[in-house]
């Protein structure tokens, strides 16, 4: 007599019982078969209607959300439903643990800017320019300068032929208009005649164009 033992269908031996076994052993085989079937399908309380093709079509099993007809979202988003069977990806709002420490106020004092922050201590940034205290530091709303000094000394390299400048001449006697002096004999002036800037062109030949005794005169570099 051959009666296998086992719990599930795969334990059943199709060769049992042998043809020579006695009929009295048939009930043992029937109980084993029923036990194995119930143990293998414990929750089938209705008809299983899937066809063989359905059961065997393993390639149709969805493996991604795209297989389910849901368009993918962006990195970090989560899947959301509207309760009507529609799905979409959304970004989660910042949670309680998110470090959303935004700036919520600030002040400026002297040369330091102080910013207050939600959830964090204030920070200060120093080194800003001093506040303007004199209107000679300002330009008006029309965009032109209301007061300014005439240009200071031109650098040597800027004094090309054709450059004009207001300067004092150390040549004695003073040249008359049309006369020429060398650059080393001139001192730049701001044009007022008194506020000399103390440097010399130190290059080239300059022709006196207009002269005023003891005041800065107009010179043009001619060579």
């Amino acid at each position, binding site marked *: 007599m051959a009666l296998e033992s086992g719990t599930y269908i795969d334990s059943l031996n199709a060769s049992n019982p042998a043809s020579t076994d006695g009929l009295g052993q048939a009930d043992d085989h029937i109980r084993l078969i029923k036990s194995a079937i119930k143990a293998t399908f414990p929750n089938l309380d209705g008809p299983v209607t899937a066809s063989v093709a359905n059961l065997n079509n393993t390639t149709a099993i969805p493996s991604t959300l795209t297989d389910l007809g849901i368009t993918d979202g962006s990195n970090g988003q989560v899947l959301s439903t509207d309760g009507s069977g529609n799905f979409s990806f959304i970004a989660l709002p910042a949670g309680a643990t998110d470090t959303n420490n935004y700036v919520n106020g600030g002040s400026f004092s002297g040369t330091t800017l102080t910013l207050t922050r939600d959830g964090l201590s204030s920070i200060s940034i120093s080194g800003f320019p001093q506040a303007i205290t004199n209107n000679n530091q300002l330009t008006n709303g029309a965009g032109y300068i209301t007061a300014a000094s005439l240009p200071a000394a031109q650098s040597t390299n800027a004094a090309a*032929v054709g450059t004009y400048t207001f300067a004092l001449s150390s040549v004695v006697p003073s040249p008359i208009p049309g006369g020429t002096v060398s650059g080393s004999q001139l001192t730049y002036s701001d044009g007022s005649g008194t506020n000399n800037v103390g440097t010399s062109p130190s290059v*080239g030949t300059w022709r006196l164009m207009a002269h005023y*005794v003891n*005041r800065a005169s107009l010179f043009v570099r001619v060579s």
Partner: protein
Amino acid sequence: MSTIEITQYRNASSLNAENTQFNVEINHPSYGWIPYTLDPSDTDMTIDNTELLSLIGSDFAPFSQADHDARTAAMVRVQRDSKLTNEVDPVVSNPLRWADLSAQEQADVSAYRLALLDVPQQQGFPHTISWPTPPACL
């Protein structure tokens, strides 16, 4: 502007101990003999300073510290005279304006004038000048 060739020069004199800057007279094709300060750092190439420097070679009066001081002193005096003429003289030489000043203001102007006159007596003259501050009434 094209470069002008200078072929004649005279009276070259060095303006510094390194002999890198010169006062010289050049015979300009348009202006004739004119004074000219030659500095190789001059970026204006109307006159080729390198060529002119080569033309001068070693034919120049050596640098003289005394001459340099005299030139600087002359420049400072020009500035000083300009201040006297334009700031002080219009007040002190005008009896009506002078009379309008208070005794203190007149004293301040007088002191300022004397300080200007004494500029050549300053310790650092002529190379380091401490220009006096004009009084507010000027």
